[in-house]
């Protein structure tokens, strides 16, 4: 209770004992939490479900404010942004045309080599409820839980690359451990040299590279992707790029901006039951392309249209 200082020594002793008990309880909870007991996990899950709407409501004004600040900031650089985007579109068009021809080639080669088809996974997307605001923990809560088929260990991705993996699931929410967290370790490979390694979070902005062969020579800017070793994460998901520190050590800088996460997708291996069939009625099917091409002055059968002009 909110109160003043205790008046007599007896109550003071009682308060002291109670405080000591509280500290002891906290320490026990810390170690029990680390043991990852099912009961503790369930309590955490239940509390996450319970607190999620409250947290979302409390965070909403700050999110809106951040949005306004971002809008004002971007309004000043609209012209430069437009020029940059135009040049990027030009570059992407060139890449797209190259990619489509290479894709065809790849498909033909796969067929020739009789490569086993990869198991197609399904994706479920949820909204991030909390911001990753801890110093010792880097996790995000999303509003998709057991109901949607989310399970512990499933990888979470964004449009830019790997975000992390699911560490706790409750009925309505699930917690994702970000790859920058100190407890996260991801098997990866360097895409240019094909050397496998493990990246570990440090609760900072960069990831530490572990178990990389001494023969490997990482190049600055080299893309790092998941290797799929261990079978938990699928291979080929972007993790980050190699950066060199002042001390000459190599680190991986994640491609994902963790502070700007709004929607996170979880790769689920099984089709979710009772989700789309009962609650989601689906989008309207895509329209079929028209069979004939209409040209100006010609009708559908290709005959010339004679327009009568009236003066």
């Amino acid at each position, binding site marked *: 209770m*909110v109160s003043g200082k205790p008046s007599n020594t007896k109550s003071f002793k009682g308060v002291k004992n109670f*405080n000591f008990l*509280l500290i002891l309880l906290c320490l026990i909870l810390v170690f029990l*939490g680390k043991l990852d007991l099912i009961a503790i996990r369930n309590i955490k899950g239940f509390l996450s479900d319970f607190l999620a709407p409250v947290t979302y409501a*409390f965070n909403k004004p700050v999110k809106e404010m951040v949005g306004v600040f971002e809008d004002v900031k971007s309004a000043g650089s609209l012209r430069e942004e437009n020029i940059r985007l135009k040049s990027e579109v030009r570059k992407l068009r060139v890449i797209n045309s190259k990619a489509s021809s290479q894709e065809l080639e790849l498909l033909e080669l796969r067929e020739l080599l009789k490569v086993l088809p990869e198991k197609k996974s399904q994706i479920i997307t949820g909204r991030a409820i909390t911001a990753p605001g801890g110093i010792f923990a880097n996790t995000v809560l999303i509003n998709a839980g057991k109901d949607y088929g989310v399970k512990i260990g499933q990888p979470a991705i964004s449009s830019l690359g790997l975000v992390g993996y699911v560490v706790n699931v409750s009925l309505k929410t699930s917690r994702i451990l970000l790859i920058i967290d100190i407890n996260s370790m991801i098997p990866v490979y360097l895409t240019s040299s094909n050397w496998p390694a493990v990246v570990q979070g440090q*609760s900072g902005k960069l990831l530490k590279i572990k178990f990389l062969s001494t023969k490997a020579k990482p190049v600055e800017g080299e893309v790092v992707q998941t290797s799929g070793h261990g079978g938990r994460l699928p291979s080929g998901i972007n993790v980050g790029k190699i950066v060199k520190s002042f001390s000459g050590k190599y680190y991986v800088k994640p491609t994902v901006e963790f*502070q700007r996460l709004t929607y996170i997708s979880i790769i689920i291996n099984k089709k979710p039951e009772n989700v789309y069939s009962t609650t989601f009625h689906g989008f309207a099917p895509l329209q079929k392309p028209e069979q004939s091409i209409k040209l100006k002055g010609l009708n559908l059968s290709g005959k010339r249209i004679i327009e009568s002009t009236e003066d």
Partner: protein
Amino acid sequence: MIKDNNLLHIFYSFSRSLLFFIFLFYLINLQISLSLFSLFETATPNLISIILYICIKRLGINPSNTIMFFIGFFHDVMIGNNLAITSIFLILFKFLSETVILDKNNQEEWISFTIIFISSFVIIFILNSIINLSIPELTPIFFHIGITLILFPIINMSMHFFNFVTRLIKG
């Protein structure tokens, strides 16, 4: 009659505690969501410790350790921290704020806050390192401590200013 008074007193103190709990809970949520701002991308300031210090030292509000425990516990559940780590920090911070007494000078106040905050944070940091068996990157931690210590005099001064204006209006 006396019984009724007792009941009323209990109800009064309970509602006061509840209000304070809600206030602290909102504050801790605000602290988490501050990370959405690009300024606090590296780490967020420890707002709750600043407000708690001002409440204890200036306003004479002495929240109970049970409130501290629950606030810390909920904070840890929300951000996925090791359970009850923040509770220990808050209880330690409150205990040190009550015991460490320096002069009521503004500068001394800042020094006393620095001592209290850093000592309780160091204990938590060591505990976390033992539990995780590894030391995290120090940049966010230094940023967290630095930004909290910078924000403390700003909040303190703004409260002084607010007090001055209210007195001016009343007078």
